[in-house]
């Protein structure tokens, strides 16, 4: 089931990324992409009860694209995807799309955005879904069965789908800058009127605050644009990215650590048979990331001794030629055995 979920998700992502490339929010374009991929076929081949289960799964997967943190375009794609899946499902009566109470505000805001931008097809489809009673108004987006996961799998979100933060740009716009400069001016005037003597202790406020603020925001924006071209979203101050930063840091640390262990100093001769084991598990960032069973299968004791007890080349030859037992067993017996065999051959 879990595999199925992943596959469905990657199919949906494929469809949405194609849709994203078109840089459009028109349903016409979306339905083109849909037909191109023959996405309706995703329901084909399921039987009876499987159908319902699969419809549930597909709708649950798709509804995540309809909600933040995805960008507006992806959310539009998510909405279209939900509508199309809901209409194309083969289950009768159809399965509903689950909508959680906490997400309702987001949906309303989304509708408002679409309305303001005069995207009639988005609003039409949203209203149509409501008209078709396609939603279950629920407490939570999925059924919860207190399933604690052994392996914490971070839900991977496509970075390209996620909207860039624009809070700094939103906050510091031209109006606000004007206002700020006005206040600044007023403040300076007031100050000079209060203290007639030019005292240095009064001149604490920055004179070039406004231009500096402006240039900082511009710099930030440029940086974001540049980042976007390669890997992007270092700067979005959201939980997910800081987590990624953490994991990056952890990876770097782990890399250094493994390097250090890899170049383990040679042990003194008496201990050379104890092979230094590079601790593989410590490479992983933490217990949460550790895959459940990384049991290192050791080779057998015999194999290990064979490998580790190295007697350097000459010694071994010497030993093998001079000792009595060796003489008795290897040198003579080998040809002798062959002779014996010959003698026993049936003719």
């Amino acid at each position, binding site marked *: 089931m879990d*595999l*199925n979920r992943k*596959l*469905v998700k*990657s*199919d949906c992502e494929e469809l949405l990324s194609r849709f994203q490339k078109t840089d459009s929010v*028109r*349903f*016409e374009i979306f*339905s083109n992409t*849909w*037909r191109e*991929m*023959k*996405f*309706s*076929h*995703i*329901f*084909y*081949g399921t*039987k*009876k*009860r499987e159908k*319902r289960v699969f419809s549930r799964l597909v709708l649950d997967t798709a509804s995540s694209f309809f909600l933040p943190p995805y960008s507006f375009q992806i959310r539009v794609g998510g909405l279209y995807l939900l509508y*199309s899946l809901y*209409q*194309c499902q*083969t289950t009768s*009566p*159809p399965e*509903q799309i*689950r909508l*959680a*109470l*906490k997400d*309702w505000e987001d949906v309303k805001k989304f509708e408002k955005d679409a309305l303001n931008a005069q995207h*009639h*097809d988005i*609003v*039409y*489809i949203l*209203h*149509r879904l409501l*008209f078709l*009673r396609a*939603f*279950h*108004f*629920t*407490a*939570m987006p*999925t*059924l*919860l*069965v*207190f*399933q*604690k*996961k052994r392996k914490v799998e971070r839900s991977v979100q496509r970075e390209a789908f996620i909207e860039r933060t624009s809070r700094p740009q939103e906050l510091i716009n031209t109006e606000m800058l004007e206002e700020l400069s006005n206040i600044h001016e007023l403040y300076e005037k007031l100050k000079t009127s209060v203290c007639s003597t030019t005292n240095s202790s009064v001149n604490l406020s920055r004179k070039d605050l406004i231009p500096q603020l402006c240039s900082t925001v511009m710099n930030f924006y440029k940086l974001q644009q540049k980042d976007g071209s390669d890997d992007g979203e270092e700067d979005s101050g959201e939980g997910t990215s800081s987590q990624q930063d953490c994991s990056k840091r952890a990876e770097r640390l782990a890399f250094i650590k493994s390097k250090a262990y890899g170049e383990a100093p040679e042990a003194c001769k008496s201990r050379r048979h104890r092979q230094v084991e590079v601790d593989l598990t410590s490479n992983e960032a933490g217990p949460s990331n550790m895959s459940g069973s990384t049991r290192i299968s050791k080779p057998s004791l015999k194999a290990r001794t064979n490998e580790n007890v190295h007697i350097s080349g000459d010694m071994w030859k010497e030993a093998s030629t001079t000792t009595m037992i060796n003489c008795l067993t290897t040198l003579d017996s080998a040809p002798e055995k062959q002779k014996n065999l010959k003698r026993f051959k049936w003719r």
Partner: protein
Amino acid sequence: MAASGQSTDPNTNIPDYEYIDVNTKPFHIASFRNEWLSRLKPSDISYQQEDEDAFDANFAKEMGLGPEIMSQLKSVCSVDSLRCHPEDQQPDPEVVPPNSTLKTLVERKKRQDYKASLKITKNRHDLYADELERLTVGRKPSAVADMIPEGEIILTINVYYPATYEKFCYVRPHMTLLMTGSHTLAELRDGICCVSDLQVCGEFSNTPDIAPDFISKDHYKSSFFFFEGVFYNDMRFPECRDISITTVEWAKSRNFPPYSQAKMEETRFTDLKVKVGFPYLYCHQGDCEHLVIITDVRLVHKNDCMDKNLYPLLTHKHRIVTQKCAVCHLFIGRWFTTNDQFAPSDPCLFCDKCFRMLHYDAAGNKLGDFLAYPYVDRGAFN
């Protein structure tokens, strides 16, 4: 509205995760319902389907669209635009389409081919599940009075079997019930079928006919649910006792945070303040303990089963392997004998028919010497 009176902070009744994807913070179910109803238009939850044309006309008026744009919009957004095949060649929806690029379909094809290679084509569990679905999905009541009102709450409740056997680590057998918000907890209790309610204690080899009169359910009626620090006791019958008092007093004497008590039959689901996805307890027959998880709370939908009388509605049932009679190997064991000279083993299981044929004569007199106990199989509710 109750919501405004119930809470000063409106956010407490909008359920949110306590642990992500595991369970929510506690919230009051009736207030949750009111939060939804205050946000939705009555038409969003109505069972009545409006007219298509009326919808389009309304939409055009709301948006201020002319008839030309509206008809264009309608054709663009129609379902036909999603069709992936020519109109006259409807492919068979039971067959996985060949040469698909969708990963899901590639995998499904693989799985279907594998299944076809197996000798067993039918799965008994699938058959049962199909049957159950047929009985539950979208049933309409015969009388209008039995209709569930619009805006009612539907709860999905998983009741888990007591952890008495070793396999419990791997499979979590449970039954799933749908309840409405106006149901009381006592109705949930009656909906839970557990074999320990059917056990009969005692030896009945002399009087096998009266054994069914001694079912535990009729003798020990006490039980309780435990939700969020409150014990809800079943007190419907005079012989019911408060079996949670032991725990409450134990906790009191150890300086635990105090537990409170309430009556099961007087508590509706809408009165509860619970976490969704969090395991709670149902205890009956003294020590038969089931986990109870409310997995979902939502508003009723027109495709739900509408007949009030069918609730609590069973939507999933785990089927357990049954122990068969030692003689016929056909029917489920009903009797359990020891010291039995007729039996191939000690102890031995018999179905009712074989038991009587072997141990009693035609007049119903006991033959030979043995001890017989009624046996209730775990899978009695299959």
